[in-house]
């Protein structure tokens, strides 16, 4: 039937209408051609192109994410270092403060000890002075007694009982010195 139609169409001289009516054989080949092209494009070429585009988009996305995570990591490290630096700085300050305190303490201790030492030295010196004075006084006392006895013996012209005299003089001197001491304190 189709063959007959084609035959009829071919045998007749083409008319103006044939220009806008499709020929059956051309329709058949056109359908085959388009089917092959569409099949190839939709099954092979375009999926591959889509894949490549998707791979590129993925790669860009990954690179972007990697860059972002690297940036946040760098920021985190920076913060960490900054914190560590701050800690180190405050630690140093603390150490300096401590040392300064310790030095102050040492200074105070040394000062206190020196003062104490000085006081002790002064006290000892005073004690020594006192003792010396005491000794000097006693010496003086005995010499005065001797000189007085000798003087008295010379004045009297005779020898007197030296021992008895000494006791008497000593008692006298003690009396005088006691008066002297009292008089001194009054001054």
């Amino acid at each position, binding site marked *: 039937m189709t063959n007959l139609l084609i035959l009829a169409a071919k045998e007749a001289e083409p008319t103006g209408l044939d*220009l806008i009516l499709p020929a059956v054989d051309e329709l058949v080949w056109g359908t085959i051609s388009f089917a*092959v092209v569409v099949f190839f494009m939709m099954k092979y*070429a*375009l999926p591959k192109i889509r894949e490549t585009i998707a791979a590129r988009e993925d790669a860009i996305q990954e690179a972007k994410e990697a860059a972002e995570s690297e940036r946040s990591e760098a920021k985190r490290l920076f913060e960490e270092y900054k914190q560590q630096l701050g800690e180190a700085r405050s630690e140093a300050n603390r150490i300096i403060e401590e040392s300064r305190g310790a030095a102050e303490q040492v200074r105070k201790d040394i000062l206190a000890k020196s003062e104490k030492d000085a006081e002790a030295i002064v006290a000892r010196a005073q004690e020594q002075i006192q003792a010396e004075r005491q000794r000097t006084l006693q010496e003086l006392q005995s010499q005065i007694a001797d000189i007085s006895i000798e003087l008295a013996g010379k004045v009297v012209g005779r020898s007197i009982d030296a021992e008895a005299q000494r006791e008497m003089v000593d008692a006298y001197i003690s009396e005088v010195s006691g008066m002297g001491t009292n008089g001194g304190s009054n001054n």
Partner: protein
Amino acid sequence: MNLALELDVNHLFFWDPILFKDTPFELNRVSLLMIFGSLVCITFFFFASRGKSLVPKGMQTIGETAYLFVRDKIAIDVIGPEGVKYASYLTSLFFFIFFMNLMEIIPGINFPVTSRMAIPLLLAVLTYLIFNVVGFAKQGFHYVTGTLFPPGVPKPIYLLLTPIEFFSVFIIRPLTLAIRLLANMMAGHVLLTIFFLFTHEFLVTDFKLMTLPLGVLTAVVATVLIVFEMLVISIQAYIFTMLTAFYIAESIHGHGDADHDEEGTHPEPTREYEGLEESTAAA
């Protein structure tokens, strides 16, 4: 001026059988060129889809640009985010028509296969089937009522509008689609033939000093026409694909929405699509 020139249009569009005479598979120059054009298209995309480089170059760039152009500028811009699904078919359609048209200006071939009704009609019928199937699939029977009785119109107007919509959508659409392509390529073919025939007549067969300027003029016009036809070839492929996408969009969104889309609420679909693409990338 006596021109020994007879132009029989039939010689431009009808060709004698070469193989399988008197069968449905009869091969003539047109069928052979269809096969040739398909092979060129396939070869082109075979090489264009081979590259897997992250930084595309050469054929890979062309292939990707071609696909992205149809996907973003036709499928998504017209249909919306859903258009991605139709991008593959629309790309195939665009480049099939383009390569079939292109033969109009290829030296030695000089015949656009689309100036014969077979391919335009076939593609128009396919478009017709697709947009009707999509319409029924997306809207059910409301597709027909929504198309024939567009909402927001005073009732008496339906008397006028419904027959017009019926003819324009369900009868004339595939015909206008097919005839637009056919007529454009036919006209281009005839135009080029006439100017090249004149040029040949004036400069070769019937060379005279007097007609030399005329021959030069027709040669120049023919050359300019070739450039013009390059434009027509691309534009016709674009229009056919664009209208197919537009009809699909109408079937998906209904009559009013599709018009709305076309008038330029582009930012929204694009934004939606960006989200879609991000989620795809994330997946």
